[in-house]
């Protein structure tokens, strides 16, 4: 049961993949669609597991993740 929710700014993501291994619930994945910058942006693949810990948002160098709890 999800207790948190995140929103990724699709156009700002540069697909550095730093947010993928840091998520303790493995909610993040690299996406398959290319954004306007030319990167395959990360996606919030498993929203049902998210606890809103905000570790992904703290890690993101481009500050493109917002977290709600």
């Amino acid at each position, binding site marked *: 049961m999800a207790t948190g929710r995140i929103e990724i700014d699709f156009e700002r993501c540069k697909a550095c993949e730093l947010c993928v291994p840091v998520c303790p619930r493995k909610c993040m994945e690299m996406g398959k669609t290319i954004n306007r910058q030319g990167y395959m942006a990360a996606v919030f693949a498993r929203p049902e597991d998210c606890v809103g810990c905000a570790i992904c948002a703290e*890690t993101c160098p481009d500050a493109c993740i917002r977290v709600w709890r």
Partner: protein
Amino acid sequence: MKNAAGKDMFSKLVYERPKTLLDRRLHYCPGCHHGTIHKIIAETIDELGQRENTVGIAPVGCAVLLYDYMDLDILEAPHGRAPALATGIRRALPDRVVFTYQGDGDLASIGMSEIIHAANRGENITVVFVNNTTYGMTGGQMAPTTMLGQKTTTSPYGRDFRTEGYPIRMAELLAGLEGVAYSARVTVSSPAHIRKAKEAVRKGFEMQLKGMRMGLSIIEILSTCPTNWGMKPLDAQKRVLGEMADYFPLGVFKEKKQADFE
């Protein structure tokens, strides 16, 4: 949507871009730690409530466009001269919080005499020193902090101590000077390290807020340069925590206490 306790779900915004960091796309390469370091500085300034009172000095290097990203008064210094500029601003406007943001080519090479003398004079400024062991903006040339054996465009066979010397440990070097109030080395290569780095940056800024001349504070942040190292961002982070952290030990090397001045 309500949860089991009857409260509205997902109504509390827990994390967003700090207010001091403007809503613009950063020009840094994917996985570059400059963005993370900008974020922790912006968060610290927000938390201390000093946004209207802070003057930043941008370096020459990848972070040269710092004034585009932060909602602060930011001046651009000639290569390596950020501590000299910060000294002037701090002395002319003693109530401001002044910080410089410098890379290793900027601070440890061309700006070596400026930082050493600013530290020796005990200027009340905060220096954020981003060490990624290479000149990032100009195409990955060898810097004074380049690791032994590291291949760069100007050391294609790897850095050799017989001709190029050894990497400089700036945090320890400056901690040996009497005018330095706080000297620490941190990294932002994992969530736990990001929190420690934020704590160190906060301490560095607090040294200026205490209303006493505590001296210069330097926070060296080990950072990645995935493009010039020729690595994926995740591998570059592993290099920082492995090879680099072995040579550049993390920790606090000096911390003056208020009582030292009484």
